[in-house]
C-alpha cells in the first residue's frame, strides 16, 4: 500500500509555491536486504501536477531520486483557493494522489 502524501501550496511573489512529500521506498534494485537478497526495483515513474484539473507539470523520474522524495514546483500566478492535485504512478502499478487548496 502506498504511504501518505503531504502537500502545501502557498502564494509567493507572482507565483505559487507547491511542496509535496511522497512516502515511497524508491528502491534502486541494487540494495540487498539483511538476508543478502536483492530488494526489487520499486520507484515512482510518473508524476503529474494539476491546477484546477489542468495538468501543468508532467515528470518522469528514476530510481535515483531519494527515498520519500520531496518536490518543489512553482506555478505562474495563482490565487487563494486554487485546487492543486499531485498524483504519482510507480513501476509496480501503485498510484496515489493528494489535493490541497492554495493558502
Amino acid at each position, binding site marked *: 500500500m502506498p504511504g501518505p502524501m503531504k502537500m502545501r501550496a502557498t502564494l509567493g511573489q507572482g*507565483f505559487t509555491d507547491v511542496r509535496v512529500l511522497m512516502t515511497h521506498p524508491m528502491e*534502486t534494485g*541494487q*540494495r540487498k536486504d*539483511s538476508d543478502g537478497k536483492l530488494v526489487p526495483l520499486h520507484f515512482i515513474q510518473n508524476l503529474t*501536477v494539476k*491546477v484546477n484539473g*489542468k*495538468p*501543468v*507539470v*508532467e*515528470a*518522469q*523520474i*528514476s*530510481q*535515483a*531520486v*531519494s*527515498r520519500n*522524495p*520531496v*518536490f*518543489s*514546483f*512553482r*506555478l*505562474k500566478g495563482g490565487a487563494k483557493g486554487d485546487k492543486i492535485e499531485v498524483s504519482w504512478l510507480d513501476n509496480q502499478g501503485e498510484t496515489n494522489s493528494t489535493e490541497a487548496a492554495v493558502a
Partner: protein
Amino acid sequence: MSRSNFLAHAKRIGLGDGKRLFTDDHIELTLVYDLAVYTAKRGQTRAIDRYARLLSHAAESDKALVLAALCASRFSLFRVIERSELAGVLFEDLMRGGETWLVDEGLEQSANLGEIFAMRVAPIDAFVVTCGAVVPIEISSAIAGTTALIVVIDNNPFPLIARFDFKEGALPFVKVNVKMGETSDVRVLAEAGGKHYVATKEVKVTIGGCGG
C-alpha cells in the same frame, strides 16, 4: 566568520600556521569549517548560533527544523553496531556512550559492522542525519519558453535522473533530493523552442562526512 578565526582553527589542528593554510584538500578543509562553525572559544558565541539568530524561519518549517538540528549537532566517534531493518544504521557513540540511529543512505550501503567513523550528526526527531549522500538539487531556467528540464548525473548508476515537462501555467523550476554515491558533474538540459541548452555543475559528495 572572520578570516583570522578560520586560520586560528586551522592552526589548532595543524593545517596552518595562523597566517596561511597548509592544505587545499577539501576533506581537511571541511574539518576546519566544522570547527569554525560549530565551536567557539570560552566566552564567545558559535558561528552557527549567530547565523540562527539572524534568520527567523517560520516555526515548524523544514528550514527551522534543520537549523535547530544543526545547532544541536555533535561531533563524535561512532562504531557501526547493526543496519536497521527499516532504514539507516545503528551506531554506538564511542565518546559519549549510548546508541544512535543514523538515517543516511550512503552509509547504509557502504558501512560495515564494527567500522568506526568520526563525524558530525544532527538530531531530527528520533534519528540523526549526516549531510552525505543525499543531495538537494534545485534547477530553474531563465530561457524564455522553456518547456522541459532534464537532469543527468554522470557518475550515477542511473545517470538519467528525471525529466520534467512544464506546460502553460508552470514556471520552469523544480527542487528535489537525489541519491549521489560519489562526486559527479550534474547536467541540466533545458528544452526551449525546439532547441536544447545545457548547464553543468560539479557536486562534491563525502560519504558519511558532514558537508559534501
